[in-house]
């Protein structure tokens, strides 16, 4: 941890808030029937409504409303019994009507929370509101350097994205996380993303822009009762960037305040390359958005029965699921965290469902398989091995057909594509040698090869048997059952372990 960061935290208490925009995975757009598919040829997913042509009108997508209510319920929000869309008026070339249909003082969902876990502790992040709005088109800036807006001679606009439903999730300010603020911010976005994925409302691909974050941050002098001025950092579009943006704003604002300056209330831009933020538009020259109720759309009054039905049919949420699985599997918070980071929770769960003891399932997925995944830079779940195959391996060990070492070899060969565990064992002859005749010959050979050790055992130094057992294992290429080998060695040398 940098000293600048430590110094900042010695003097100031960071308070952060996050505004997250999520593109919903509806088939059609928010207010028209155009497709939402990513990556189509420019301006092929447009109609009079999403182009804002004169005379066109919006009609609300029912699934977008339903998805937003489900998100609100998953975030423990109150669902408004009556609310309206509002027009947010400002001019921008990628916004076809020069107003955005959004929600202002009547959001669909209010007052909720999301619990996240950081370093084994639960932090409750308050949710202020969840509302629905429409996305803008996309501008391509031409003539400047590397497609940046600065220095461009003109821009080219594609309205395929215009009108895609966008849910905005706004947290309350989160105080009290101290040095962990960056980690908590990241954990929140991670948890939110997992929750949205579980709800199946969005593909939550940050790299395609379907989940985008703005980070608000202010510093309070320790012990002060007044809140500091906050900056709003736009377009923080990866988990790592969320963490870095919070950290870099803590350092920057602490630097400003420590040198006697004042933090400006402004919009800042995050730069992926440097991890730093730079000043954008200051709020003093901010637009007056002139919100008013959208006259082209009628109010939304979700019937209570509908909301309750949606609540009753919510899937188990990631936080609850992790808590349940931890209890069922008897693992620690940190072990669960490790499994989560490795993307192994689902695989372990599927393996346990096949009546494999949780400890064994955890051990195999987070041991040998996590190592293999790591080597290949893939998630554990992406390895070409199934929970059924892992379950079979565990069963084979229990039956004494293979030992741990053999089992690892078998798994490696399964991943290498040589077939199922049984096929690999058969083809490679990897089963444990438990036939006393075959083992007996190997024991005789080992005793003959190491008469000194054999004598020591005969003299009662049972510990010396280890060398002979090792030799037998070597002779049988590890396929022998070590316990049985030991019994045979002692038996043949007349010693009793």
């Amino acid at each position: 941890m940098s000293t600048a960061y430590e110094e900042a935290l010695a003097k100031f208490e960071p308070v952060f808030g996050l505004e997250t925009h999520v593109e919903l995975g509806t088939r059609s757009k928010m207010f028209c029937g155009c497709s939402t598919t990513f990556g189509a040829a420019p301006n092929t997913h447009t109609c009079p409504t999403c182009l804002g042509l004169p005379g066109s009108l919006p009609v609300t997508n029912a699934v977008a409303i339903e998805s937003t209510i489900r998100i609100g319920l998953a975030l423990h929000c109150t669902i408004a019994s009556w609310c309206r869309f509002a027009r947010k008026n400002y001019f921008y070339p990628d916004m076809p009507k020069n107003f955005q249909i959004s929600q202002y003082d009547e959001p669909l969902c209010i007052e909720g929370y999301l619990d996240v876990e950081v370093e084994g502790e639960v932090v409750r992040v308050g949710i202020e509101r969840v509302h629905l709005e429409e996305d803008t088109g996309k501008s391509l800036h031409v003539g400047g350097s590397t497609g940046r807006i600065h220095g461009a001679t003109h821009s080219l606009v594609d309205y395929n994205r215009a009108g895609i439903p966008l849910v905005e999730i706004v947290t309350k300010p989160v105080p009290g996380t101290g040095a962990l603020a960056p980690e908590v911010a990241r954990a929140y976005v991670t948890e939110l993303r997992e929750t949205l994925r579980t709800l199946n409302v969005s593909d939550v691909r940050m790299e395609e822009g379907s989940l985008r974050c703005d980070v608000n941050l202010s510093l309070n002098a320790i012990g002060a009762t007044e809140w500091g001025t906050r900056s709003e950092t736009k377009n923080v579009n990866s988990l790592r960037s969320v963490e870095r943006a919070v950290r870099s704003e803590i350092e920057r604002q602490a630097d400003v305040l420590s040198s006697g300056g004042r933090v400006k209330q402004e919009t800042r831009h995050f730069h992926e390359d440097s991890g730093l933020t730079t000043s954008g538009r200051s709020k003093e020259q901010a637009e007056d958005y002139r919100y008013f109720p959208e006259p082209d759309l009628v109010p939304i009054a979700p019937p209570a029965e509908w909301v309750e039905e949606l609540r009753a049919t919510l899937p188990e949420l990631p936080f609850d699921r992790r808590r349940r699985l931890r209890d069922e599997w008897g693992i620690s918070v940190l072990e669960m965290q490790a499994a989560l980071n490795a993307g192994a929770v689902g695989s372990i769960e599927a393996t346990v469902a096949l009546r494999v003891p949780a400890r064994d399932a955890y051990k195999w997925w987070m041991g040998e398989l996590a190592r293999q995944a790591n080597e290949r830079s893939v998630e554990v779940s992406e390895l070409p091995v199934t929970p059924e195959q892992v379950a079979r391996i565990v069963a084979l060990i229990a039956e004494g057909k293979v030992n741990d070492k053999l089992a690892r070899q078998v798994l490696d060969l399964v991943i290498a594509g040589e077939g199922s565990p049984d096929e690999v064992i058969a083809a490679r002859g990897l089963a444990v040698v438990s036939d006393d005749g075959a083992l007996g010959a190997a024991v005789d050979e080992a005793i003959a090869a190491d008469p000194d050790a054999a004598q020591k055992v005969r003299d009662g130094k049972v510990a010396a048997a280890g060398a002979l057992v090792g030799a037998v294992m070597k002779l049988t290429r590890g396929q022998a059952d070590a316990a049985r080998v030991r019994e045979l060695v002692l038996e043949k040398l007349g010693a009793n372990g």
Partner: protein
Amino acid sequence: MTELTRLSAAQAAGLIASGEVSAVELTAAHLDRIAAVDGSLNAFLHVDTEGALAAAAAVDAKRAAGHHLGPLAGVPLALKDVLTMNGVPTTCGSKILEGWRPPYDSTVVKKLRAADVVILGKTNMDEFAMGSSTENSAYGVTHNPWDLDRIPGGSSGGSSAAVASYEAPLAIGTDTGGSIRQPAAVTGIVGVKPTYGGVSRYGLIAFSSSLDQAGPFARNVYDAALLHAAIAGHDPMDSTSIDAPVPDVVAAALQADVRGLRIGVVRELNGDGYDNGVRQRFSEAVALLGELGASVGEVSCPHFDYAMPAYYLIAPSECSSNLARFDAMRYGLRIGDDGTRSAEEVMAITRAAGFGPEVKRRIMIGTYALSSGYYDAYYGSAQKVRTLISRDFTAAFEQFDVLISPTTPTTAFRIGERTDDPLKMYLADLDTIPSNLAGNASMSVPCGLSPDDGLPVGLQVMAPAMADDRLYRVGAALEGALDSRRGHLLLEEAPAL
């Protein structure tokens, strides 16, 4: 046989159905009439000769093939230039849309096509429907056929002038604060603002979304009912469209009977500021309705006095947002793009050059009324007045089946008379605005010529939402009684062009 352009829509449709007149002949007669008189009227901005003749030929072919023809098949119609028609220029009377050809049909146009109505072309209007005189068009003033020095009303003045001058038996207008009823009144024809949500707004280029409503113009009540029935009905493309059966306006127009109907004369919509000639014709009509068997009484709607200020806050507020899309980026005019100016500058230059003074004034008022710090005092208060006006209507409709008033305080004023005084201009909509704010149905039906200046006077009938049929009962009864007293149609007194 009478001259083809003098036929009512119903008569014309009957002759086409019976084969006595071809749709092409009828259309050609109207195109000839336009060619002959529109030079002095300027009712049309665009005449779609080719499209109209093709549509007429299709009707004739359909008849020849023995297909059933609807009640308006082959009847020509003039379309206000605020409704989109695929591939046909649509300007809204504004320079900013010069040359724009929408790539889609409005729902009204779709329904007209489905009814085999022949659309002759697009009619002049106050720019973006903001005005009461059609003097705010970027394409010149439209003249009143009764007196070419006078205004034809507005904003749908092109449509009213076209119908009153026999350029078309039918026209479509739109009414945000009176833009169908007031032009109908000052040109001696019938105009109806259906219940808000009764006719789809999809493809109607919005001025004030919560007030705009398209409706019919005709030379008699029955024709208006036929057109009303053709364009009304639920549209899933318009979220504010009412999903209920359309009241049977055609049957009501045929019934033409007010016996037992309770008619309330609105006290606040009469008195000071009303022309003597208007008041005289109106009170004669009231007496006549009593003679026809209606029970007529007086009713007070105290908050109607606040309708105009509320309207001149709500409509500009919504328009400031609705018209933001005209920004030179995707369609229409672009001025000042010299390769050095930014998009922001080009937007501002284009909008300043492309919008006329009244539009700019209303955008500015709306921007002011919605801006932070003023919202509650202006827009918020205006929305409350809206509630109070609706309550006045509700209370009045408990006592009366319909309410009546003069349609407008004066007959057609002279061109140029009010252009320098916006507030005086706004008075033209004094009587019509309450129905827009409350969303109920309303009609203007001629009730004679003012003894002062020999110009037409309109009577306004207001009915509860989705009781549009009552308008037609009253309108048809009054029209029938007046015509039979007079011995001829009112329009026959108009000077020949």
